[in-house]
């Protein structure tokens, strides 16, 4: 649960796109991820720990981590023009 809110964070990891770089395991300050050597992919093991810092979201090279229940622009400054374009990409 995100500190100070009632919102539950859900981490969506697309393991088909995961390249096994382990960068999410390295950057996560609260050890949400573990690395599965046999499958060469990361997996979410302690989702409840998540504080919504978005470190994994931004470091992931194949951008295969998405977070539900966290605002991408509320706590972190985002460019409104860029947000508009990003929402219209097809």
């Amino acid at each position, binding site marked *: 649960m995100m500190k100070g809110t009632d919102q539950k964070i859900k981490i969506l990891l*697309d393991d088909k*796109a995961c*390249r*096994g*770089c*382990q*960068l999410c395991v*390295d950057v996560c300050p609260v050890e949400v991820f573990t690395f599965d050597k046999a499958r*060469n992919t990361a997996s979410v093991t302690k989702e409840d720990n998540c504080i919504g810092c978005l470190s994994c*979201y*931004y*470091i992931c*090279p*194949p*951008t*295969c981590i998405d977070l539900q229940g966290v605002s*991408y*622009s509320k706590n*972190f*400054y*985002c*460019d409104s*023009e*860029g*947000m508009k*374009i*990003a929402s*219209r*990409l*097809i």
Partner: protein
Amino acid sequence: MKVRVATEQCSTCAGCHVSFVDLHEKLLDVVNAIDIVYCPILADFKEHPEADVGLIEGCVRTDHDRHVVEDMRKKCKSIIAWGTCACWGGICGANTVFKPQEIFDKVYLNNPSTVTNIIPDSPRIPKFENEALPIDQIIDVDFYMPGCPPHPYFIFEGLTSLIAGKLPDTTLRSVCAKCNRRMDKTDVSELKRNIEGIPDPEVCFLSQGYICLGSVSLDRCLAPCPNTGMPCIGCTGPTPRVIMNPYRDIRTEVAERMAKLTKIKEADIIKEIENFARTYYSYYMGAPVLRNKPTFLIKKWMREAEKEAATV
């Protein structure tokens, strides 16, 4: 009733139109549902007809392009910026770092491979504008479909979904998501240029010390380059993560990941990308949303690289 589609070209190479034809048999599915009412590479019409969807390829480089996009906006219910040139300026946008006079000088007056010495000047030739701009700087754009060109799969998905009145089921992942290389942590301590050595076909270019823009580029290509042995050059334009954040940039994102995968210093990678900024940023330096980032100082990097090259 069929959906009326108009396609138009501005300053570009027509590659996106070729990609549309590359739908092959699937083209029949699309053509059954749409009516192509305007397409300059197929038929010569002088006026834009009314249409439901307008696909515009290319950036705005001349006053003719400006007129064309403004007229298309009036005639089409929704506009799709089609391809990297229309979305980010593309290769035409790469000359945004030079003044028109410098370009004319290089192309017509002091071109080392030709003997011309006249700058073409006639009322029949559209006037050259000061800079090449993506079309969203001139008109409102409803959707962006980047790619150089967008892979036929994405054109098919985009068009069929919009015809059905819903958003396409395509992801906004980076090129790495479709790349088959394994991202290993290595002890590589030196950067390599593309011409140096033979990279391991199983392992990620970043792990091997080659700069690859796959992790910052949107997958609208299905990753043909890294899968066949060439580092990604970022032709599809940046991922939403780079577009949204003013403090995140191509060079810092790549450097951060590469420094974590190898033993190369982050500052060295950033310096290398800055030295060759015109290569690494060639597809999107024309887009104001990217070039207006406070950390994007391409003219300074160009001056520094020239100074460095002069001292060697």
